[in-house]
């Protein structure tokens, strides 16, 4: 147990007390109590920063299931710690923000904060765990808490839908990841990520490498909303805005990024990893930015922009993984690790500007009652602070100076250019695509950033279309985005503070071979007139032109073919699955017991018959058989006759009597076969049974014979199945009769007189050797007796009542 463990568990533990606090202090907004937690965690974790800057790491372990090599191990290194700081830092801001956003009077605050704390703990767990199973545990917990938070307003149908969608997709990824973890474990024999990384060579050479990698990436891509799994993120915007800001832009969606970064040392350096991560990222980048432009809901726009930005970071990680291909010290390492540096830098920057943008949008929503850009406009004068913050955020997103987004965007271009020049992984042929795609995506990023500011704060003010009278938000709501806005600027001007304390340790974790290469490197926003700068200028120029002509070409989106709306795929897929399943079920679960029996018999015939024919060769054994006398043949004929009669007769009585006769003949067979006890019992039982049949069935309608139209026709299908079962039984019986390897144990009972004091062996077995069977047999009789009594006497149907069985 260490303090770091405590930090992870603290939010979870605290969650237990939230409902109590909520009840105990109805006057104080519960958020104030909650605020303590992230602040504490941030404060404590920040003390590890110096250690990181010196290149150190820390490990603490609590045994959980050591038997299965599952331990709660936390591993503090650059990657994990910076993520944890983002989580707790932005967490604190979000809590402050939520205190003003969520009304104390109307909302179920305890639920909200419980989920939030659950999420925070889970997220910290994800980024700090070293054990993959524990990582998976927290991973699923983030999906679950996100599910709960999205559906915080569970009365809304859209919220429920969004929550379900998010959960299904992320849990699908989680399961894939679990499979991958298990494969990795089977290859390396460990659940510890550090040890897996140490055995990277083994992993990469194994047959299961590709499936394990794909499944792992599936987990990461679903969580980080990469194409085509991004569809859950726009629907997740049904969550309260603080949640969107926190989970769906700053933290949870970055868990996938984290995962890719974390496993880069293990899987990276292979062409498959490079290609998949890079191109899925790039495609997501462009897909997201293209779609963001057409959105009319502010949050939807932000959602697609988040998707796009996540794609950007993902692709950078992919490009950077090429560094692992080279040996430490090669020039390629630094060249390509630069992309990773850009990735983590943009990751941090994205958290700041996107967080503040979400909060601003939340403010707009909160104060005007709508997020629809068609209704908004001209809020600049009414909400000046918000406007300023929005401008800072948007321009940073668009990649303009003097904001931190500019630096990381420039680094992104550098990364794409260096990736394009790569001469491994077949990049020489396709590499040129990368910078082109990146540039186009940046243009659209620029456009939607402008749209965001312009449509909301500039243009015409339309008070009549707003639900509320707009005014500036309270101070408390403005503080968190202001802090983030301040950071956006601060990072631009002092990038190396972040660089030394955060980025370099992170890169060291992701590309261990690049541990020292950036030591002397300083990030700066000015590199001179390099291609990157021209690319940016072109982005601005083209972007402005396109924005000015927006109304001319925005209609193009309406011509998007239906199949490209992936949302429909999900919807139709889900309902299709349900309908298809229903069809399958309806088709065979007919409710007719006859059908069920038919399936059962056919299964038996196929499987047992099949194995009989495949596994045994039939021979008819004729040795050591008991003799047959004429008399027995006559009995057999009687038996046959009465059997046929049971099947053939249309009279119920005849059927019953025939069965009775059958029973008697069986008793006679028992006599012939030297079983007097059986014969007696069989005779008695048969008589009672026949009497019972008649007693019960005297009043039933006439048994329909086969000659009647609707009656029981002779069903040839049924008969064939029945014949199949019968023949199977006979065949097996014949084979079994020839199988005489062992002496039956019953020889022992020959001494029953001496052993049990009974001359009748059967009785000795019944009462003594296997007395327990007999004892249970009378229990069965007892149950049947009481059961019949209860069945006849107890009739709840007439009474109606509130039995939950109906």
């Amino acid at each position, binding site marked *: 147990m260490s303090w770091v463990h405590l930090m992870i568990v603290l939010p979870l533990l605290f969650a237990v007390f939230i409902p109590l606090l909520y009840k105990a202090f109805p006057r104080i907004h519960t958020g104030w109590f909650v605020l303590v937690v992230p602040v504490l965690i941030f404060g404590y974790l920040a003390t590890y920063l110096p250690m990181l800057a010196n290149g150190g790491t820390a490990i603490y372990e609590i045994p959980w299931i050591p038997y299965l090599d599952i331990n709660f191990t936390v591993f503090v290194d650059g990657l994990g710690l910076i993520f944890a700081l983002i989580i707790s830092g932005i967490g604190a801001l979000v809590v402050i923000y939520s205190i003003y956003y969520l009304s104390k009077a109307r909302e179920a605050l305890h639920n909200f904060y419980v989920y939030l704390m659950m999420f925070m703990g889970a997220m910290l767990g994800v980024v700090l765990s070293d054990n993959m199973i524990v990582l998976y545990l927290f991973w699923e917990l983030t999906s679950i808490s996100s599910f709960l938070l999205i559906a915080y307003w569970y009365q809304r149908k859209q919220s429920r839908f969004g929550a379900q969608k998010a959960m299904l997709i992320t849990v699908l990824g989680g399961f894939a990841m679990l499979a991958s973890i298990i494969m990795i474990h089977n290859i390396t024999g460990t659940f510890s990520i550090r040890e897996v990384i140490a055995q990277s060579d083994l992993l990469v050479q194994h047959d299961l490498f590709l499936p394990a990698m794909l499944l792992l990436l599936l987990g990461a891509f679903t969580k980080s909303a990469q194409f085509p799994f991004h569809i859950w993120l726009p629907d997740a915007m049904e969550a309260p805005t603080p949640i969107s800001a926190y989970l769906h832009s700053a933290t949870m969606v970055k868990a996938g990024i984290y995962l890719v970064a974390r496993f880069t040392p293990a899987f990276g350096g292979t062409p498959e990893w490079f290609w998949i991560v890079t191109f899925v990222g790039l495609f997501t980048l462009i897909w997201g930015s293209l779609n963001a432009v057409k959105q009319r809901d502010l949050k939807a726009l932000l959602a697609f922009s988040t998707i796009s930005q996540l794609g950007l970071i993902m692709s950078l990680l992919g490009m950077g993984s090429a560094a692992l291909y080279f040996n430490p010290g090669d020039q390629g390492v630094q060249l390509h690790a630069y992309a990773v540096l850009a990735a983590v830098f943009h990751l941090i920057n994205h958290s700041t500007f996107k967080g503040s943008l979400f909060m601003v949008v939340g403010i707009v929503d909160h104060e005007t009652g709508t997020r629809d850009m068609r209704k908004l406009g001209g809020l600049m004068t009414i909400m000046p602070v918000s406007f300023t913050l929005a401008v800072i955020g948007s321009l940073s997103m668009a990649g303009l100076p003097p904001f931190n987004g500019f630096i990381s965007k420039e680094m992104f271009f550098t990364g794409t250019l260096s990736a394009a020049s790569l001469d491994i992984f077949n990049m020489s042929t396709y590499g040129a695509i990368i910078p082109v795609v990146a540039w186009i995506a940046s243009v659209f990023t620029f456009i939607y950033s402008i749209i965001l500011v312009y449509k909301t704060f500039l243009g015409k003010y339309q008070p009549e279309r707003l639900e509320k009278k707009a005014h500036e938000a309270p101070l408390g709501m403005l503080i968190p985005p202001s802090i983030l806005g301040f950071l956006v600027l601060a990072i631009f001007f002092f990038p190396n503070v972040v660089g030394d304390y955060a980025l370099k340790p992170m890169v060291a974790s992701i590309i261990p071979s690049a541990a020292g290469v950036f030591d002397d490197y300083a990030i700066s926003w000015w590199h001179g007139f390099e291609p990157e700068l021209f690319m940016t200028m072109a982005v601005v120029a083209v972007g402005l032109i396109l924005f000015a002509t927006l109304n001319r070409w925005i209609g193009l989106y309406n011509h998007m073919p239906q199949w490209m709306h992936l949302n429909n795929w999900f919807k139709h897929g889900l309902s299709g699955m349900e309908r298809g399943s229903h069809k399958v079920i309806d088709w065979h679960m007919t409710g007719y017991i006859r059908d069920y029996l038919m399936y059962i018999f056919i299964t038996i015939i196929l499987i047992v018959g099949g194995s009989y024919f495949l596994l045994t060769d039939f021979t008819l054994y004729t040795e050591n058989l008991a003799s047959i006398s*004429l008399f027995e043949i006559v009995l057999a004929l*009687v038996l046959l*006759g009465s059997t046929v009669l049971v099947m053939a007769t249309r009279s119920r009585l005849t059927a019953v009597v025939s069965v009775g006769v059958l029973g008697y003949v069986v008793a006679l067979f028992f*006599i012939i076969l030297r079983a*007097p006890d059986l014969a007696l019992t069989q005779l*008695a039982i048969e008589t009672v049974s026949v009497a019972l049949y008649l*007693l019960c069935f*005297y009043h039933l309608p006439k048994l329909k014979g086969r000659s009647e139209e609707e009656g029981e026709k002779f069903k040839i299908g049924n008969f064939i199945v029945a014949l199949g079962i019968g023949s199977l039984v006979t065949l097996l019986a014949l084979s079994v009769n020839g199988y005489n390897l062992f002496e039956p144990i019953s020889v022992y009972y020959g001494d029953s007189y001496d052993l049990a004091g009974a001359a009748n062996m059967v009785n000795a077995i019944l009462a003594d050797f296997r007395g327990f069977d007999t004892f249970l047999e009378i229990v069965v009789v007892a149950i049947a007796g009481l059961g019949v009594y209860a069945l006849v006497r107890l009739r709840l149907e007439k009474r109606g009542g509130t039995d939950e069985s109906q």
Partner: protein
Amino acid sequence: MFDLILLISLLLISFAILVALYRVYKGPSMPDRIIALDSIGINLIALIAVFSIYMRSTAYLEAILLLGILAFIGTIAFSKFIERGVAIERKHD
């Protein structure tokens, strides 16, 4: 010789049972069937008696009385059932 006689007897009794079965099947009325059943029961007794002689075994003698009892009770139950619709009455009328 003795065994042959017994065997033939067994066959003949079986035949008698078959004949009675025909009556059970044919009917036409319920009482006809019951009579046939009763005679099957009785023939069965004879069958078992002969069989135990044939087997030289007294192990089956219980079956004789048992069958007698069952046949009797069965017949009574059936006849009451036909006559009154119930075999066991709640209260005599």
